[in-house]
């Protein structure tokens, strides 16, 4: 897709560079600059298809991110006044709590978690599949890992409580928002909000768990978005009118949907179990029930999508009738296989913790 346009690779490289630069910085100017570079590189990727909806989404995305950046720089500047240091390491321990809060709200806005999640579904509604994939995976890396580094530096109770509440709220909103949703991309946007909630919650207790969760979420998302892109399933109605028999893509989507919902034999369950395992010893176990409630609600719409896909297929599995090249099939099958290896992964992880 992107290879048609010569500048596609350039922007993808810059996109990656922005995130890495932001994460590698020790002072706030670098962090802010990295995020801005990332944003500037992402906008052309959003509008490459020249559709009116993508442009609209790009503008919406830009407004939200610009606002987030503004708050980030404002918060860090407020933190500068007591400590006279723009260094990230000195920041959280010696600054006003208001600056810390403002910076974190900016990050929440940038990633699209609970109180400030409004932009994410409407942006995703208009985007192409590839852009959606980048939006829910790579674009989350910088805010999530920055948030994680706050907890690496110091641990404050009120801050931990706030983050877990954000996580719980995200999970609930992500669960409830997708019910009754017919557009598949909006549905996946809400699912992304829900999973972000789990990640936010696990950041508080164990950065290892959050990383594992994020990695597994990315893995499943890659599989789902690639397959949906191949099938070009925009909404549930179009899903229902496929009528082309089971092919490998549909089987893949079916399995990955259940995995995303977190049902036990599959990989999605592993990530949720790690989070639960990491938080059982702490005080916030009660909040976990809200997270689980949210995933329960999201299970409802995953299954809705699952069944409308499943019953649209008229005949049994025909491996021949795949769509897409050999590489895609390799990616698909490898993701599928990894999804079924959860038992092994769990035993490995239990040794790890």
């Amino acid at each position, binding site marked *: 897709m992107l290879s048609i346009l010569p500048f596609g690779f350039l922007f993808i490289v810059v996109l990656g560079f922005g995130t890495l630069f932001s994460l590698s910085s020790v002072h706030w100017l670098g962090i802010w600059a990295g995020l801005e570079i990332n944003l500037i590189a992402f906008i052309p990727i959003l509008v490459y298809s020249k559709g009116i909806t993508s442009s609209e989404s790009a503008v919406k995305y830009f*407004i939200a991110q610009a*606002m987030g950046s503004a708050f980030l720089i404002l918060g860090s500047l407020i933190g500068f006044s007591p400590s006279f240091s723009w260094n990230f390491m000195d920041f959280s321990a010696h600054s006003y709590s208001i600056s810390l809060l*403002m910076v974190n709200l900016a990050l929440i*806005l940038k990633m699209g978690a609970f109180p*400030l999640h409004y932009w994410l579904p*409407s942006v995703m509604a208009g985007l192409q599949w590839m852009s959606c994939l980048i939006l829910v995976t790579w674009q989350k890396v910088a805010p999530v890992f920055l948030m994680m580094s706050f907890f690496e530096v110091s641990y404050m109770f009120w801050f931990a409580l706030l983050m877990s509440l954000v996580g719980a709220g995200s999970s609930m909103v992500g*669960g409830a*928002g997708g019910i009754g949703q017919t557009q598949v991309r909006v549905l996946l946007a809400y699912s992304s909000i829900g999973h972000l909630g789990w990640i936010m919650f696990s950041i508080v207790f164990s950065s290892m768990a959050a990383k594992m969760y994020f990695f597994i979420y990315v893995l499943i998302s890659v599989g789902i978005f690639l397959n949906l892109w191949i099938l070009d399933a925009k909404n549930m109605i179009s899903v229902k009118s496929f009528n082309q028999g089971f092919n490998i893509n549909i089987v893949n989507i079916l399995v990955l949907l259940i995995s995303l919902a977190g049902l036990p034999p599959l990989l999605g369950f592993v990530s949720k179990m790690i989070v639960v395992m990491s938080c059982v010893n702490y005080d916030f176990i009660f909040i976990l029930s809200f997270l689980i409630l949210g995933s329960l609600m999201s299970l409802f719409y995953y299954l809705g999508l699952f069944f409308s896909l499943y019953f649209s297929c008229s005949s049994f599995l025909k491996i021949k009738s795949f769509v897409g090249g050999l590489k895609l099939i390799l990616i698909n099958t490898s993701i599928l296989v990894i999804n079924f290896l959860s038992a092994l992964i769990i035993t490995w992880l239990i040794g790890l913790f």
Partner: protein
Amino acid sequence: MNMKSSSIASFLLLLYTLFLFPLSLSFFMKEKSILIDWTFTEINSCHMNMTILLDSISLSFSNVVCFISGCVLLFSSSYMSSDPFLKRFTWLVMLFVMSMNLLVFIPSLPALLLGWDGLGITSFALVIYYQNNKSLGAGMLTLLTNRIGDVMILLSIGLLVLIGNWNISLLWDFPLLFLLVIAIMLAGMTKSAQMPFSSWLPAAMAAPTPVSALVHSSTLVTAGVFLLIRFYPTLSASSFFEESLMFVAVLTLLMAGIGANFENDLKKVIALSTLSQLGVMMMSLSMNLPNLALFHLYTHALFKALLFLCAGAIIHGSNNNQDIRKMGLISKQLPLTTTCMNIANLSLCGAPFLSGFYSKDLILEMALIYPTNYLMILMTFVATGMTAAYTLRLSFSLLWGTQKSASLHSKHEADSYVNISTCALAIMAIISGMFLQMVFLPFEMFSATLSNFQKSTTMLVIMTSIFISLFFWKLSINESMKFKAFCSSMWFLVLLSTQPAVSFSSVFGSKLMKTSDQGWMEILGGQGAWKGSNSFSIMIQSMRSGMYINMIFVSLISIFLILLISYLL
């Protein structure tokens, strides 16, 4: 050679009996018991054990069961010869024998449930063997009453989690022991049809007569007694066990004895006499005499199976008529069967030197010296008299009375299957009492020192009741209908245990379904959750569908609100 399936099965069973007999005898003589405990797998320090207990009790019980079932299957080669599904019948009976053996040999409670539940299911399948509504009703009553016992066993398995050991013979005292005792007692009472649960036993007579002979007289119903015997060391430790069991047993004894005098169905009379003998066994258990209970169990099983087979032969010969008012003068028509039946009847009454005499007489004498109250003794002896009375009534109307059936009948005694099985059982009914006393008694020191009057009480009571029943036979007394209804419906137990239980549970169930399953549970469960999440979702969706600038505004406001709140806090 074209043998019937039932004959093959019976041959196998009799062969097994023959081989087992010396073995069980040696276990008796040497007082040996072998416990085989095979751990076939172990998961996370939880052992999966298969336990088999070989001792004198289990071996001899298995011996008796297999002998009787062998005879009964031999009998059914004749009785069920015109049945199109003889093979199925044989399989069912063999399954029954298997579950009985599982019950006998396995002392571990969860595994014992295998045999216990197997008995319940096969007995249900055998009761509804003749497929009609009446059989189904009887079968359901049987199954559901036995189900109570199953639940009690399940409960006791749950209770035994507390001590982490389910081996019956290796239990010790623990805080909830009284609950275990109650559960096991209730389980034994349901299987052995004791007082509140008695009504299924006469109802189960809907089964084919050989099944009644095997299942509902000699073996299945004794499973309850057997369970209590196995559990006896644990049960006797609790204070209330003896009194309550004795009360129930004596009431059952009396109720069954009176009821049998009012019953006109041949099979039901015998069923009620079984019930009263079960009462006798339970009574001996409640007097700290488990071995004597086992003794009576064996002798009773042998003569009761004989009685049933003779009754079956008579029923078979008189065109499937079971009503004793339409029979008579069978002693002339079936001399051999009559002889066997007389042996069984006399043994049941406790006539001297027949098998019943050795066990029953001993139990009654022990009752006389056991420190209990006068009422119990009185009821026991009245019931004993009743036994003699209904036995005599049966003989009168069946064997010696004038012929009341049509003169055209098909009674004959040329069937070797019937003759061999009845004669074998008759021999056992004669000698088993003497034999078992020789084997059993040395191990239990009975010191029944009775005065002459007490010693002769049993005989006196039996003679008196025979005299009274002879006297009343000619006399038509004007019985009160209410009294008759009370007695013949097992003290209203038949009426109480069918309709009220069914209608209560069905009405309660439908009410519960309306109010809870289709009412509150729906609102608090699926439908309500769906509605709630749907309205929540609509609320969230409506935020997305508005102007984008509004959303940004909302985000800004929420950021400032959060900051403000944190500042204020």
